[in-house]
């Protein structure tokens, strides 16, 4: 049985958040920490791709619509690079075409903003195989 501290000593799973919206980047990390993850935020897909945490990312929270490289593009790019990172899409656009599209491309889940914390947690657990 590991204590909290011992558990803390063990490396927490790195969850990357890629969203151009500042409020999302501001609010999500705290929630993820509560869940017991280690969040990292990026304001654009390019930033994420050029960062050094690419390899350690266990899960990616990705905004679908961003200026510059879109979420779909990032998904495609990671696939091309052979980075098999589980992706959870987020979007405020409740367009019916988005969800099937990303799921078809291999996303774990597509959440519609605003989403509840439980929905997020379920998606994360699914992504990390912690069912």
């Amino acid at each position: 049985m590991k204590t909290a501290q011992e558990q803390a000593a063990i490396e927490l799973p790195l969850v990357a958040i890629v969203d151009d919206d500042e409020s999302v980047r501001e609010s999500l990390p705290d929630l993820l920490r509560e869940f017991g993850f280690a969040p990292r935020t990026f304001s654009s897909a390019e930033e994420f791709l050029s960062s050094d945490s690419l390899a350690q990312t266990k899960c990616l929270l990705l905004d679908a619509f961003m200026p510059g490289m879109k979420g779909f593009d990032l998904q495609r790019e990671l696939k091309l690079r052979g980075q098999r990172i589980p992706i959870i899409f987020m979007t405020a656009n409740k367009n019916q075409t988005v969800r099937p599209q990303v799921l078809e491309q291999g996303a774990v889940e597509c959440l519609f903003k605003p989403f509840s914390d439980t929905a997020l947690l379920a998606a994360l657990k699914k992504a990390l195989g912690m069912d």
Partner: protein
Amino acid sequence: MIAKLLQNRRQAADGPSRLHRLNIGSRLALCFMLIILAMFAGSAVLLWQFHQARLQSERLTGVDQELIAVLRAHLSLMSFYERLDVLADAEDTNTLGEQVEVLQNALLQDSQRSQSALSHLPPEVRLDPTLLPTLLAIQDELPAQLQAMAMLAKSGDWNAVRLRLANQVRPLEARSSLLVENVDREVSEERAQAVLNIRLAQRKIFLIVPITVAMTIVFAALLGLAITRSITQPLGKLMEGSTALARGDFSHRVPVAGNDEIARLGGIFNEMIATLQTDIEERKRAEEALSASERKLEFIINAIPGMAWSSDPDGYTDFLNQRWLDYTGLSTEQLQGWGWMAAIHPEDLKAIVEYGESNLSSNRTAEVEARVRRFDRTYRWFLFRTSPLLDKSGKVIRWYGTNIDIEDRKRAQEALAASERELRSIINTIPTTAWSTRPDGYCDFLNERWLNYAGMTPERAQGWGWRAAIHPDDLDGLVENWQTCLASGTPVDSEVRMRRFDGAYRWFLLRGNPLHDESGKIVRWYGINIDIEDRKQVEAQNKIAEEALNRARSELAHVARVSTLNALTASIAHEVNQPLSGIVTNASTCLRMLSADPPNVDGARETARRTIRDGNRASDVVTRLRALFSKKDVVAEVLDLNDATREVIALSLSDLLRNGVILEMQLATDLPPVMGDRVQLQQVVMNLVRNASDAMGNVEDRPRQLLIRTEREDADRLRLTVKDVGSGFAPETADRLFEPFFTTKNRGMGIGLSVSRSIIEAHQGRLWAAANDGPGSTFSFSIPCGTDTKV
């Protein structure tokens, strides 16, 4: 002798040139030396003659002595023989022995004496050649014979002795007598000769002495004459020169020869004269120049076209130039002193007197005008000006003055004043308010209508006092406008409200024009204020009508806005959902933090704060959107087109992204603000952007690039351009694009562009479309910038 004299004469004649090389002292010394030499020469000659005479006399003495000597010798010999005879007869041996010795000595002595006397004779005395030998023979033979005789005597052979004596002595005796005769004869000859010579010498002396004396005298006289002349002649020339100088003849020069003292004196004299001559000539020249310039000055004073005079320090006028005399027709005697006052006009006399007094005191006035009577008894105006000549201490030595004819100028001034009065009456009668200012804007004239309308006095209104009659709201604008026009010289054109005397305000059109002089400089401003109150009323009515029209337009715009609701819904949802999402997430986090053990209160606080902020943000979005969709009247405000454009883009960004539009924004950084309705302008931008996005909906083979650009079009206009690479439009539909209900879209209503155009036109701008060189089209609108655009 004569030849010598002549020679001397000649010498004396050309003596000066040679003598003058020496100084006078040397010359005199030389002269004396020569005289002394001459005297010496004479003395020498004389002495020589004397010497000659002496010689002869010595010769004479000599021969006499010769005779005496011979006689003595003979006598002594005779006596000797006589004694011997005696002795011999006496036959006394002893005595003979003794006596012979003595006699022999005595005889030898005498003989020697004679010998020496003879040898001491002067050489001129010719001695008988047998003389000395005889004596010598006697001397030689005698001692031997005597010895022999003595011996014989001793032996007692007195006969032998006597015989010897007779044989030897007697011839000696005879010889001696012969000698005496010869000598006697010779001496007589000699004597005669000597006497002759003496006589000759005497004669010579008598001849030579006078001659020598005479020669010496003549020589001395000539020499002295020459020397004296050599001195007096130059002195004479010097005297001539001095006389000439005293006479005043400065051209005379003393001839100078040689370099003795007199010559040097002559040279110095010449220099002195030359210097005097030069000085005198210079002085003459200076005097001539002075008198020439005096004449010139007098000429000028009488030629200048003005009257000039001069007086002593008290004011007594002692000089008036010719013009004074000609003008007044009076003479100098009549005018001098204070007589000129008679020519002044009686009315102006007082002013002149005061002017004169002020000049004499320390409180000078510069000038005075007075009338002076002409010779034909008419009066003309003159300008009087005076100026003092001061000495070093500042005291007045003389007064100088001019009088300038200003009659014509005075006439012109009066004519001008008269025409000014006339002009003034015109200006006050015409039925409009009029004013005039100096180049700096200082108003020094307002006509009567103006003053009566405003109810102000000229004193109150002049300068800048007229501003009190301008409505306070209009005053600042007017003043600024007026200052600008003053500076730039452009005519003033301004509408302001002016206060009437009863307090009511009426609208006036204020117009002013500058007056330029020949060089282009502004010398005055002239203006009128036109009552446009009635026109303003009409304008106001027009404005109301226009406003009604605008309201109709905005109604139309509103309808256009509504039609875009559908498309905007997505934007709205997106805009609102972002903060909402943040709220939900933060709240969830907050709950979890508080549920933790121990509760993370700080974290919860932070998330709660973020929640509130996001809630406010959502509220802002709603407000903005509401403002966007609410029907509002035209609100004209100062806005930044770039900001408005950015807001529009922010609202439509999600939509654009969804359509795959690549947005490029080129917003000018130095864009000035514009005056307009923010909402309406944003509508236009939104319309253009949406159209551009829709136009590219089917574009697959190239990037869907959308360019939005703002820039300055001119000095006073802005332009906003929206460019796409879509399907474009056919050139023939270019004009129809902006018609109401014209559309190329499947689901469009066709009112966007027409409404946009009317909005832009209401902003005094224009909206147009152009096809690109490549695919797509460019829509642009330009509106005036600045803050005085009337919407």
